[in-house]
């Protein structure tokens, strides 16, 4: 390889936020086939029904989400799929979910990511239904908020 080509590739890799020594690369996952099956406009409820001294000020609600992850371009590779949720201006928001077994159950705090799958990518589309519960601070949630969940994959480099 010519030195100039090698330098160009190094520059590109740095721009991509990775390094030639990394063992995995992160890519967004196409989940455009996912559907919120329950209500996608959740009216939150107070977690403590009765206001009292020391009561929690959190609110919660839950819904069902059919998740379809298009992993076709990484089929045959090893990878870890994460669900992500951007940090919210209304304060801490936590999502917890159970699954039917294809994906991992877990907990996700806004601004972080949580593992939903690890292992070989053996199918084009990874599909599961999540029972998704969302909890927020009831004293800071003053208007409707849009929570945009997405997925990304860490693919082990061959």
């Amino acid at each position, binding site marked *: 390889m*010519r030195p*100039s*080509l090698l330098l*160009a*590739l190094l520059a*590109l890799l740095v721009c*991509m936020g990775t390094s030639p020594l990394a063992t995995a690369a992160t*890519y*967004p*996952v*196409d*989940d*455009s086939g*996912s*559907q*919120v099956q329950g209500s*996608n*406009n*959740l*009216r*939150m*409820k*107070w977690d*403590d029904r*009765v*206001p*009292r*001294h020391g*009561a929690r*000020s959190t*609110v919660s*609600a839950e*819904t069902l*989400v059919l*998740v379809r992850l298009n992993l076709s*371009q990484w089929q045959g590779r090893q990878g870890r799929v994460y669900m992500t949720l951007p940090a919210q201006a209304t304060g801490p*928001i936590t999502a917890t979910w159970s699954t039917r077994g294809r994906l991992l159950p877990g907990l996700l705090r806004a601004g972080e990511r949580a593992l939903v799958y690890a292992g070989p990518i053996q199918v084009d589309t990874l599909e599961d239904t999540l029972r*998704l519960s*969302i909890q*927020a601070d*009831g*004293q*800071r*949630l*003053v*208007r*409707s*908020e*849009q*929570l*945009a*969940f*997405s*997925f990304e994959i860490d693919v082990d480099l061959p």
Partner: protein
Amino acid sequence: MNRLPSTRYLLPLLAMAVVADVQAFVVAISPAPRSLYLRVGDGAFSTKDFNSGGTPQSGGVRNTVAVTVPADQLLAGADQAMTSTSRLSSDYDGFAFCNTGQTYIGGYSRSDNASGNATVTATVTSPLTNGTDTIAFSQIRWVASGNDPAGAVQPIGSNNFGDTTKVIATFQRNTWNESCHNFFYSNDAVVGAGIYTGTITYTLTAP
């Protein structure tokens, strides 16, 4: 000669550019319902206490707080303890929070507004009158207490009425606030003989 990276290296970058626009699934969340409740005197509540699944109701009787001033006290000017017909137990848990003769006052404000607390206002809706004679409502004061826990700071503390309207308490959000009031007539002036009646309306206001 300088060359661009071959197609072999460009393809993964183009693929990334395409998938970067993937659509996330979106869930909208809306604030929980706001609510507020104030009971003065008997108030109204469902058959079960709040912590047993009961719910606050609208209505209830108008309780009376009264005193008969003995003749020998008219010129003495000593404060005269008044008695009330109020129900004494808390609707939070049924606990006997007040003692005989006291007036129960309590409630809550459940709000999504982190910047403001609800306030309790006492307004004179009809002055203390007996024909053309009047007694200023500011002559009526109260001492706050409660049976549990002993010595706790009272959320609706000791005070007196204003002659028109007066803010008498601020409710901490998402908390049950309750106190018992022992009323007193200050007896500061000699007034014409007779029965003086008036009405105070309590209002809980949340921002």
